[in-house]
């Protein structure tokens, strides 16, 4: 079938799209999220929506799902203009969405989650009919899931299937997936892709939102690129290269490799022995982790979320109780010490949750820069804070890290994600730093800031600091690491030297598939 690359003229040729956004504009108080975007999906196609963090992909999808109401523009379903005032309307048209952050009710069961809010007869819950329908869906797509399991008992991958089943259960014709592979191991992602192909064969259309170029090339028929709220282009996937897509995404040539110099690894600085801890639900989450971090090294922990990284991070910084094991720095065992004591030993951290765990949104930039340091001279003089010293330190930090803010007194809630991360970096990378634990340092940041963060980490490495990098982003891991440890179900399965590792071997381990020779 001849495909016209320009969706506008294609429309003029009277092709009726399944779903179409015409000059869609969505504004928020601080931000123009979608700027006159044209977008369409055909029946039986997989259409990728590609863009950086903050390009407007999710917002566009939420408009198509009826969660947001666009300020301007039309949405057309099968050619007819529709007014989606709530997700209910979208669901009734046959549009379903699987969000990046799942919207599941954790204490409830799979079937309760699926049934909640769906059309029903009568007042009383009737699970029998639902079970039958779900069983046949599971059979069709070869998905195995216990309908009565509580959500919190499921793995992240299984939870995603619940989200997909939620949409399929309502008889969806168009499925929107927002960054679905962010939480999957490479094998699980492959599985998802094959299921999507199956769905496409069954006549479903799929909008696949992602910022990963490889996925676009692998799975889609067409791809639409968004940049800073505007649509850059819509192309057939087979007609385009990754470099071209990257250029459209970012607007400039993207260097895929940050230059990492060869540095000789130093002495061991931080040693984890048999570190064991429980999750919030009381289950064993860390099973005797052994790691040694050296000076002048970046040791990465690769793995999909939910395999103990959170517990590892929190146990190391003193916020979660380790039920067994030791953490030794410079001969001192600091396991289960208070967070402040650990920080004073020269261990800093960048949390994965900037706003929730790294900053006080109501505080000014100046005040955030001394968070954790408020009891230390020179920021403190006797009983009081030394305000002039704090001010000087803030001025220096803002200049050195190029933090964009109208003034140091500005509340951090008004800063962008990238600048927030810079505030955290300025604070954590102060002198007398021995070990840095970076947890998802590039999450939610755009390419320019990611480059900056990576440069800072490599600089620290050059200065002799040992860095433990916990990341779900394999690109980042391959860019920065000297060694890579793969974590699965609370254990370190194997540690690679970076040059020995490739995505296949790491990917298998991330999914827990070990061969007989590895431990």
């Amino acid at each position, binding site marked *: 079938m001849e495909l016209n690359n320009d969706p506008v003229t294609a429309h003029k040729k009277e092709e009726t799209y399944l779903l179409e956004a015409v000059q869609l504009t969505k504004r928020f108080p601080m931000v123009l999220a979608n700027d006159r975007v044209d977008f369409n999906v055909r029946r039986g196609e997989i259409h990728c929506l590609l863009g950086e963090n903050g390009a407007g992909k999710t917002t566009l999808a939420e408009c198509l799902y009826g969660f947001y109401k666009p300020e301007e523009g039309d949405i057309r379903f099968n050619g007819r203009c529709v007014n989606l005032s709530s997700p209910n309307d979208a669901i009734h048209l046959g549009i379903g969405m699987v969000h990046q952050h799942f919207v599941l009710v954790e204490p409830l069961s799979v079937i309760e989650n699926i049934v909640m809010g769906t059309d029903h007869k009568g007042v009383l819950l009737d699970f029998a009919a639902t079970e039958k329908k779900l069983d046949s869906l599971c059979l069709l797509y070869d998905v195995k899931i216990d309908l009565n399991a509580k959500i919190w008992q499921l793995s992240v991958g299984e939870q995603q299937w619940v989200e997909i089943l939620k949409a399929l259960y309502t008889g969806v014709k168009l499925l929107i997936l927002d960054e679905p592979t962010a939480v999957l191991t490479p094998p699980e992602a492959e599985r998802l892709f094959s299921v999507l192909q199956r769905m496409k064969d069954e006549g479903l259309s799929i909008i696949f939102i992602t910022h990963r170029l490889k996925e676009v090339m692998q799975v889609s028929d067409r791809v639409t690129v968004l940049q800073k709220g505007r649509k850059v282009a819509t192309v057939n996937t087979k007609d385009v290269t990754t470099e071209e897509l990257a250029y459209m995404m970012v607007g400039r040539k993207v260097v895929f490799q940050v230059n990492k110099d060869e540095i000789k690894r130093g002495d061991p600085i931080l040693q984890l022995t048999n570190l064991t801890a429980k999750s919030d639900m009381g289950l064993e989450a860390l099973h005797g982790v052994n790691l040694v971090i050296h000076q002048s090294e970046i040791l990465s922990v690769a793995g999909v979320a939910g395999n103990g990284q959170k517990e590892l991070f929190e146990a190391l910084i003193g916020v979660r109780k380790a039920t067994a094991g030791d953490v030794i720095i410079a001969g001192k065992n600091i396991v289960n010490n208070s967070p402040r004591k650990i920080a004073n030993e020269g261990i800093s951290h960048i949390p994965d949750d900037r706003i*929730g765990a790294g900053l006080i949104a109501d505080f000014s930039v100046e005040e955030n820069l001394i968070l954790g340091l408020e009891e230390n001279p020179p920021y403190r003089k006797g009983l009081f804070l030394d305000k002039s010293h704090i001010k000087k330190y803030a001025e220096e930090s803002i200049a050195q890290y190029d933090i964009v803010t109208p003034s140091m007194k500005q509340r951090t809630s008004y800063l962008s994600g990238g600048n927030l991360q810079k505030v955290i970096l300025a604070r954590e990378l102060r002198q007398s730093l021995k070990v840095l634990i970076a947890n998802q340092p590039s999450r939610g940041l755009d390419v320019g800031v990611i480059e900056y963060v990576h440069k800072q980490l490599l600089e620290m490495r050059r200065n002799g600091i040992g860095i433990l990098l916990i990341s779900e982003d394999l690109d980042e891991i391959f860019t920065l690491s000297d060694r890579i440890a793969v974590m699965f179900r609370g254990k370190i399965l194997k540690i690679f030297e970076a040059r020995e590792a490739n995505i296949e071997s790491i990917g298998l381990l991330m999914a827990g598939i070990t061969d007989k020779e590895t431990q």
Partner: protein
Amino acid sequence: MSPVDKLKFEKRDDISPLGRTAAIVVALIAAMLVSAILIKLANASPLEAFINLFKGAFGNKRAILETLTKSTPLILTGLATVIAFRGKIWSIGQEGQFFLGAIGGYWAYRIFEGLPAAALVPIVILGAFLVGAFGGMLAGLLKAYFNVDVIISTVMGNYIIDYFLSFMLSGSGPWREPGSYYQQTAEITENAYYPLLFANARIHMGFLIAIACSMIVYLILNHTPFGYQLRAFGSNPRAAKFKGINTNKIIILTMFISGGLAGLAGTGELFGVQYRLRPDLSPGYGYTGIIVAMLAGLNPIGVIPAAILFGALINGSAQMRIATGVPTALTFAIQAIVLLSLLSAQVLTRFRVRRVDHA
């Protein structure tokens, strides 16, 4: 830096100082209007009632000094609230801790009764602060180590303290004035009186203590590491914990200080005004203190004018009742209306910003 790369968080936008002042003004006007309605329901003329209220509060020098006297405990209970609420520690124990302070002060008085004033008064103040602080600290400990909500433990505590006082002052209780028909202690001796500031007026040293406390709380909150940690904890307890702030210490110490401040209020009333320990030593000063603190925007200096406002209300209501027959209980109604109006007004100033994104 992409302009679209924006924060996601659920904190509401900050109210500008202009917005905050507007909210207070709107709240007070709304309170006056509703009060006018209530006064009409009491078969009196609102105009007359307000005039007498004002006269009673500010009509002459004596009235003004009495207003300041009435505002003294309110400043202290207001400060007690400010320091706790800034840490989002929702203590409602000011009323109970007020009485703990009175009890503590009286207890110290009974032990050291013979001493000259110069020694006795400071001891009494110390005793009051410590017992009040102890009560507050208990609530803090319960929260830190047993996760018992401060709201509930302090509310329950208020009842328990009330019964305890009732026991101490009961017919067979150890503190009852011998031979008296009323639930009260004997009058305290003059050497324990708080010095008066002026002749012919009831305003006493407690007022100066209250002003001093206001400045001390301001210093603590804004110029000490502890104050910084308290504010951080109140705003984002998770980040505070991650960055090494000892949250248990914050809760316990804050409640200690809060209880102590409320305790100072109680002993001020006992040794500065009433000279007897009685269950009606407080007509709800603890609860009014909460409203004072809210009206002041949880600002320790702002507590002073807010407390004076409510002190004026309480003082003026006596005159109002004499002249127009409106029950003094109106003050309680007005206090509550001010609080609700304030909440609503604050909300309305945010109203415009929030509505934009609704589908």
